[in-house]
């Protein structure tokens, strides 16, 4: 396949993944803000913006006034925000057009339909009343594209580059949520067991659609170590770092087999994966949760860069 097509499919799936995760983050933020007073709500929305890396762009648009409707409209649909969910869906579709020959009709139609639907959904401002429906729409679109992908695509390099984009992005997003919220999970800073803690913890899980899975696995016991371990090390959970890296390894292994050669990206990913597999949550907390996440994000980005070089995404 063309290097340019690999680049197109890689970013198409990164953007689709990011759009979906952004919707979840907004949903969790909204839920949290509903249960808090306005000062704390504002704080919650600020942390959403920081997680998305949009706090500066938001301040340039709205100043210091951080309110829910401003934040979610900015994040979801503001034309001045090139990283809005609508802009991401639009870019994903542009990329899909570019790699049209590499994807099935079903995948293309799912992406194109997403774009058409969301363009309508985002044509007018999103109110608090409409927010839930809007977020549902974003999530459903993502699921549709993924379903079309799983059900119709040949398991060739195109499919695996899509996977690489998806899981690098997902690992990045989960790690970012942890990075912004890690203090909530640090036992030394929290009065363990207070109801506020429980709400905060649950909210972290909610941001990655993991609250039900976690409750089910842990019989409703909320504790920060358990949650951190779940999000970082539990291979059963599809948004954990360990899960993403296992899938990433599969995708990369396919390319190595099909092409008959390993790349430097394989080596970096293997090292990261091995380290993750050798860790326990105790060692992570000993070494420092924040440091661990910073290192992880840096390496994750390094893998992405290296893949783009190794597979000639650009000249």
């Amino acid at each position, binding site marked *: *396949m*063309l*290097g*340019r*097509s*690999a680049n197109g499919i890689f970013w198409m799936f990164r953007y689709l993944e990011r759009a979906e995760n952004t919707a979840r983050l907004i949903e969790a933020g909204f839920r949290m803000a509903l249960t808090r007073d306005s000062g704390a709500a504002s704080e919650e929305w600020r942390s959403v913006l920081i997680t998305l890396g949009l706090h500066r762009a938001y301040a340039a648009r709205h100043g210091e006034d951080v309110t829910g409707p401003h934040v979610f409209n900015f994040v979801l649909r503001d034309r001045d925000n090139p990283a809005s969910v609508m802009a991401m869906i639009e870019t994903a579709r*542009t990329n899909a*057009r*570019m790699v*049209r*020959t590499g994807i099935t*009709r079903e995948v*293309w*139609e799912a992406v*194109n*339909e997403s774009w*058409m639907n969301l363009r309508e959904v985002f044509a007018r401002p999103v109110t608090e009343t409409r927010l839930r429906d809007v977020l549902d729409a974003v999530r459903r679109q993502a699921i549709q594209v993924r379903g079309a992908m799983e059900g119709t695509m040949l398991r060739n*390099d195109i499919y695996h*580059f899509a996977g690489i984009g998806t899981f690098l992005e997902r690992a990045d997003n989960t790690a970012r949520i942890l990075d912004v919220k890690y203090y909530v999970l640090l036992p030394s800073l929290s009065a363990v067991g207070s109801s506020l803690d429980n709400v905060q913890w649950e909210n972290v899980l909610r941001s990655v659609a993991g609250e039900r899975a976690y409750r089910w696995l842990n019989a409703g016991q909320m504790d920060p170590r358990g949650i951190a371990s779940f999000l970082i090390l539990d291979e059963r959970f599809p948004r954990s770092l360990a899960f993403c890296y296992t899938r990433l390894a599969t995708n990369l292994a396919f*390319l190595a087999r099909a*092409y008959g050669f390993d790349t430097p990206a394989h080596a970096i990913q293997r090292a990261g994966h091995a380290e993750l597999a050798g860790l326990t949550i105790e060692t992570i907390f000993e070494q420092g949760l924040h440091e661990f996440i910073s290192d992880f994000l840096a390496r994750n980005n390094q893998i992405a860069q290296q893949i783009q070089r190794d*597979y*000639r995404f650009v*000249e």
Partner: protein
Amino acid sequence: MGSGSGELMTTPSLPCFDEMREPDGTVRPAYAGYRAWLDAQAPGLLKRKGLEAEAFFRRTGITFNVYGATDGEERLIPFDPVPRIITAGQWRKLSRGIEQRVRALNAFLHDLYHRQEIVRAGRLPERLLQGNLAWLPQMAGFTPPGGVYTHIVGIDLVRTGEDEFLVLEDNARTPSGVSYMLENRETMMAMFPELFTRVRVREVSDYPRRLARSLAACAPPAFTGDKPVVAVLTPGIYNSAYFEHAFLADQMGAELVEGSDLKVTGGRVAMRTTRGWQPVDVIYRRVDDDYLDPLTFNPDSALGVAGIMDVYRAGGITIANAPGTGIADDKAIYSFMPEIVEFYTGEPPILPNVPTWRCSEPDALAYVLDNLAELVVKEVHGSGGYGMLIGPTSSRKEIAAFAAKLRARPDNYIAQPTLSLSTVPIFTRAGLAPRHVDLRPFVLVSPNGIDITPGGLTRVALKKGSLVVNSSQGGGTKDSWVLDD
């Protein structure tokens, strides 16, 4: 569908041939089966299906881009659900004429870039070639792989009577629109499946496979493997015909490449793949000659490949269509097509030209100047309907201004009568209503022969009494049927 003039003129007062009905209202044999089916359908069916078709086109992304338009930049080409029907007998005659013309075009192009026998024989004035930018000196003395110049040709036909089909123009450069021909059929079969069990229509869907086979049969001398690597070269996603480029690449299982994906290396043109640089054997290019090679042609082009012409001349790649075929699209050359056909095939042309006055000839010029109000005058190198005069719809002032231009540079123009073009009904709010149409059959040329897909693309002027069938100017398309015997 940017290429092709589509500047079809007619005046409503002229009696014209309706392809569905005789003047007394009787349905012609070609439409008997369709009409019987239609009469048995519930009222409102066509309307409902038309809306379904539009939603289908939007979802599948069958759109064309409009330059300079923002936001809703992707437009649909209106699709009319009433088919345009040609009988088996008519088609037999048409295809004989098309094959003859395409054969002549290729022989003509070969001659133009070699000994120019037709000029030596005094059958084509040399001045038509001198200083003609469409004649490429880089092609002189070179024979493309397999001797094929026009791998893909679109012959634009208009009809004025039961058996009167005329060639309006030849598209030997990069004819577009074939994806609409294919999608229109898919859409019709999806909307009216039972109709196709009632009326036997010849298949068009294997066009991409035939195109792939035809291109592969033209592999260059440097090709050594067992299956030539074919790639479609597109200017990119903002090109108005991008959908078609992607569609054809997809259907052929070929890579869709842009100039930035290609470079010349080791005497071959190679594409940048995730495994490294891979040589390309045949390139179906959808960029103009001028943008093909910045080293040879337009130095500012970012759409082409630096050095591809050298590789081409050395036998390292096949370019389809060959550079320099645009000379055959020249309208002054067109006016000589009857002579050209006869010169190379030794037979009189089966399909006539539209009568054409060459303004370079004093008698013709005098006639054209006297009759501007009834004529269509075109620039010889123009396309897409630019720089032309449509006499019957122009004001006196416009005609006078044009006459001045014509006197200043008569050899830059040709003139044609306004034809009474045939009509085919379209579906309107008020029911079926006749509209003017043309037809572009698509022809593939390879060393194995000439292959004509039955039917082609019917373009239709949607406005009453009009006119212009161009998609950019309110034209639409129809599914075109050739009936099975």
